[in-house]
């Protein structure tokens, strides 16, 4: 475990040196600032769209960040030939995946926290109240980001980075569809599509922004359930990545 934690620390340092990450961070911060500058035109409920757009920007920023963090990890390690020495002595294949994912997840959560603080500053600067449950909503976006990162890392073992990004985007869009919208993609087979929809992860589970925007209290039991749901899917994705990586010939 100590080796994996040390390796995840190395991963954080490696990721922090990349310009891509800081680019995504800066772009999302700029988007939040832009949202904050939208004039209210005297509309009393302008806080509603600042929060809505702000949290949507955070979610999309999390998706792009996950792709930026995870898509190149395995191909780059292989290209720079540090993978074989790592696996030869200090790390098992499972340790490699765990270390790289934990490092990436740390950066993902740190960035989500940073954006949450930025959005809070924007709202307070506009004299808007920060609703109760705001941080809970941001925490669920962080969990969603970690799940997306696990998908990107898992895909990274099989597909190249240019293909990884559109596949993840497509998956994100499909997983954001409601049941009826998903079935309408293939209306001829509602049963099979309904079953497939059930098996797919639902991004809606992590979305509580509508609740906090409209002043409804999100039950703590549901928050715990959403965290369990996100962790379960993340573990499954990483297990599949491990199974895929363990059969891979690295020579």
């Amino acid at each position, binding site marked *: 475990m100590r080796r994996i934690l040390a390796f995840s620390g190395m991963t954080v340092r490696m990721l922090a040196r990349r310009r891509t990450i800081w680019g995504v961070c800066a772009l999302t911060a700029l988007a939040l600032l832009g949202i904050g500058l939208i004039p209210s035109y005297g509309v009393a*409920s302008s806080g509603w769209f600042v929060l809505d757009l702000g949290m949507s920007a955070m979610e999309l920023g999390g998706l792009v960040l996950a792709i930026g963090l995870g898509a190149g990890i395995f191909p780059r390690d292989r290209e720079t030939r540090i993978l074989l020495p790592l696996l030869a002595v200090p790390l098992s294949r499972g340790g490699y995946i765990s270390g790289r994912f934990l490092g990436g997840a740390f950066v993902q959560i740190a960035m989500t926290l940073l954006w949450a603080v930025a959005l809070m500053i924007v709202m307070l600067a506009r004299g808007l*109240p920060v609703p109760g449950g705001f941080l809970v909503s941001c925490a669920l976006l962080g969990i969603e980001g970690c799940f997306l990162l696990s998908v990107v890392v898992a895909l990274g073992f099989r597909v190249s980075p240019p293909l990884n990004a559109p596949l993840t985007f497509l998956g994100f869009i499909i997983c954001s569809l409601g049941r009826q919208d998903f079935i309408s993609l293939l209306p001829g087979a509602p049963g099979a599509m309904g079953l497939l929809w*059930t098996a797919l992860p639902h991004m809606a589970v992590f979305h509580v922004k509508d609740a906090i925007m409209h002043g*409804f209290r999100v039950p703590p039991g549901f928050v715990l*359930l959403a965290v369990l749901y996100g962790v379960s899917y993340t*573990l499954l994705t990483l*297990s599949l990545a491990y199974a895929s990586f363990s059969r891979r010939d690295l020579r």
Partner: protein
Amino acid sequence: MTALPVLLALLVPMVTGSAAAPVQPSDEHLAGGSEAVELSGQEHHEHGAGERSDCTAWLFEQPWASPGQWPSLLLLSTILLALSAGILLVTGRHLRR
């Protein structure tokens, strides 16, 4: 084997959509009062007291507002965790060989 009917009873409604029992807006909300804060723009209510609005159905059908979906989510999470453990176990055995 006795777990199978329970499993189906929890998962099938989620597939067919009949498990979605949305949280109803509170009596106070329906009566024209509000539990919401100023942020929500309550002045834009378009339904009369005591009536449900189709315009807001999307809000009350979201997972956080549909306790009917929660047992299915819990069951699905448990299945996923068991599946992960199974995959790790099988892969570990494969690697040891």
